[in-house]
């Protein structure tokens, strides 16, 4: 049974349709990445999933049960890591863990031993009694995650948990999340970092303007863009009129075209050498042609017509 199932979720704020018909599911031990630019609807989706917002439409099923029919049960099963560092900075890391652990329902003895475990797992035992305000950004992020893990949730919602930290700290956090998934935790992970989604998530959903545009494994999404490969042509294409070239539109589609770069993908699965020959026969003279594997950015480009980094 899916640990989390979102069915046709929708939320509107005034005239803004923040989330529009998002459906997805996360299995135990799976890391599902929700990838999209800022303002795409990722946080609103997480807020509805965690009960912070009531959806205007749709349903949140946690282990098969509707969230709002038994919110206490759902809250016990899930841990939520908000995008901002939601900690009491005057208190120590240990105090924060103890407080959130007690609030999650752990008793006095259980909370102490669990806090020690979490600190150990996050490599923060030696700084446990320091106030959070004295921590580095990466350490705050780790404690921020740790507070959501105190009650051993089987479903973890992580809303961009690595924003604003250095690459090494980010890598530590990603390793920790992989470790959690290996132990069976279902993870819904939102991000706007392509590399994180590519390297961390088993399945990825691409969201923009509140709508889930595509989902699947990285390979499935790559396959969706082109049948195996993309060609990046470099040269002076200012006067090129591909619509007038006979047969070009049937064989290739343009993903992106700028003054000196032209990214095309074959419409059907063909041998790259064959595609290259057709491209070199076009009535333009590329200075360089690069064969590349599609990235998630290319997928996003194909789906939205703009880059994820814009």
């Amino acid at each position: 049974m899916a640990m989390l199932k979102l069915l046709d979720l929708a939320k509107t704020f005034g005239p803004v349709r923040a989330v529009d018909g998002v459906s997805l599911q996360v299995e135990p031990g799976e890391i599902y990445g929700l990838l999209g630019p800022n303002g795409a609807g990722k946080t609103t989706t997480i807020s509805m999933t965690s009960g912070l917002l009531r959806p205007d439409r749709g349903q949140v099923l946690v282990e098969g049960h509707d969230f709002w029919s038994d919110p206490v049960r759902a809250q016990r099963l899930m841990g939520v890591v908000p995008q901002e560092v939601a900690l009491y900075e005057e208190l120590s890391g240990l105090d924060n863990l103890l407080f959130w652990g007690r609030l999650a329902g752990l008793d006095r003895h259980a909370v102490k031993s669990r806090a020690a475990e979490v600190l150990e797992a996050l490599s923060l035992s030696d700084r446990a009694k320091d106030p959070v305000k004295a921590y580095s950004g990466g350490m705050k992020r780790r404690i921020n995650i740790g507070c959501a893990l105190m009650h051993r949730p089987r479903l973890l919602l992580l809303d961009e948990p690595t924003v604003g930290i250095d690459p090494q700290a980010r890598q530590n956090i990603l390793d920790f999340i992989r470790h959690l998934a290996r132990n069976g935790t279902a993870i819904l992970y939102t991000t706007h970092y392509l590399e994180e989604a590519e390297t961390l998530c088993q399945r990825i959903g691409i969201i923009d303007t509140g709508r889930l545009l595509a989902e699947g494994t990285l390979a499935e999404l790559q396959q969706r863009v082109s049948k195996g490969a993309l060609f990046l042509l470099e040269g002076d294409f200012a006067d090129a009129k591909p619509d007038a070239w006979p047969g070009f539109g049937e064989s290739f589609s343009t993903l992106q075209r700028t003054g000196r770069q032209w990214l095309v993908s074959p419409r059907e699965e063909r041998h790259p050498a064959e595609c290259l020959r057709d491209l070199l026969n076009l009535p333009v003279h590329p200075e360089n042609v690069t064969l590349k594997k599609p990235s998630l950015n290319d997928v996003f480009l194909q789906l939205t017509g703009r880059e994820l980094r814009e």
Partner: protein
Amino acid sequence: MLLHLLIKDLKRTRRNPWPILIFLAIPLCITGLIGLAFGPKASGGGLGKIKVALVDEDGSILGGFLRSASSQGEATDHLETRMVTRAEGRELLRNNQVSAMLVIPNGFTDALLDNAQPPPLELVKNPAQSFHPAIVEELLGTAAELLSAAARLVRDELPEWRRLIQNEDRFDYLLLARLITETGNRIQAVEDYVSPPLVSYRQETKPGEKADTPGFNLFAWILPGMASMFLLFIGDGAMRDLYKEVRFRTLDRYRTLRTSLAPLLLAKMLHALLVMLAGATIMFGGGALIFGIGWKEPFWLALLAAAFSLCGAGVLAVVASLARTEKRADVLNSMLIFGMAFLGGSMFQPNALPAVIRHYVSPLLPNYWFVEGIRQLQERGFHGSIPLMIGGLTMAGLLLAGVASTRFNRLLQEGVRE
């Protein structure tokens, strides 16, 4: 869970006590400054010992008489005179070491004894002090009236008195005896007009009451007003912490773990109540230690402070719940606290306010009941209206807490943001 929430807030306050410490220090400092500006504390029913520099340029019997009069009997409790030159007197005034300088001008006694108009006595008041110089001025006015009356009474004998005083060879005891007899006769003649006085007073000490009660203490008058205002500021800081929870997203985290907001709100109010009570203890304890204020009826004072804290926390919680944003809550509560302090007698005595405010506005404000209650405890001790004040404040506090809780719950469900 309520306990965990409360302990967490108390721990946070302990780790960052500066905002509260500042609000604790300010009323003590203001009380000290006002108290020192308008006169020190008085023990023994007066306003402390008044120091006067006496410049006797006349070099006559009158200067010696004034000096010996001020250094005898009860006068020593209130007056301390120092015979100095005019230059020394000015120096003492400049250094704020005396409240006034009295100059007996040259020829004053001669003119008085010659039945002529004497040159005026000169009084230089210390501009850095307010009460004491005014008291010296009043005393001097009274002394001048008495001296003038005495001179008129014994006008015919004055030349002989002068001869008696100025005769340096041999003191004429027979003349002295005659003059005393004649002066006594004159006094006896007017006795019916001056004695007994038409208006008098009698001081009584009730059995069981200390004869030597602490006198009026200006600090004890000022501090309750200041304390009531700054206790509200302390409570305001604690209540607005709810908006900090919104800003730091800890409220969102709370809501991912708990469905009911009531424990969180209740904990915030309890936290506000506790820090206000701790603040009251420090302020009133500090007042006793620093300014020597003898608080009467400490038990009732503590109950009054607790009831006021509860009512204050309720008022602030209601305002915070209506504000919807942290900035608005900040502005609204500051305005409200100053308004309540102004209209409720924290800054001015309610009697000094316009009648419409005094009768219709002040009695609606918790500051009024708190300050009035303490002042009444100080003046009259415990009496029947004190429990009524405490009960009223407590009931109002509970009612306001209920309103704030309901309102906050709805506000947070709607999605409050900083």
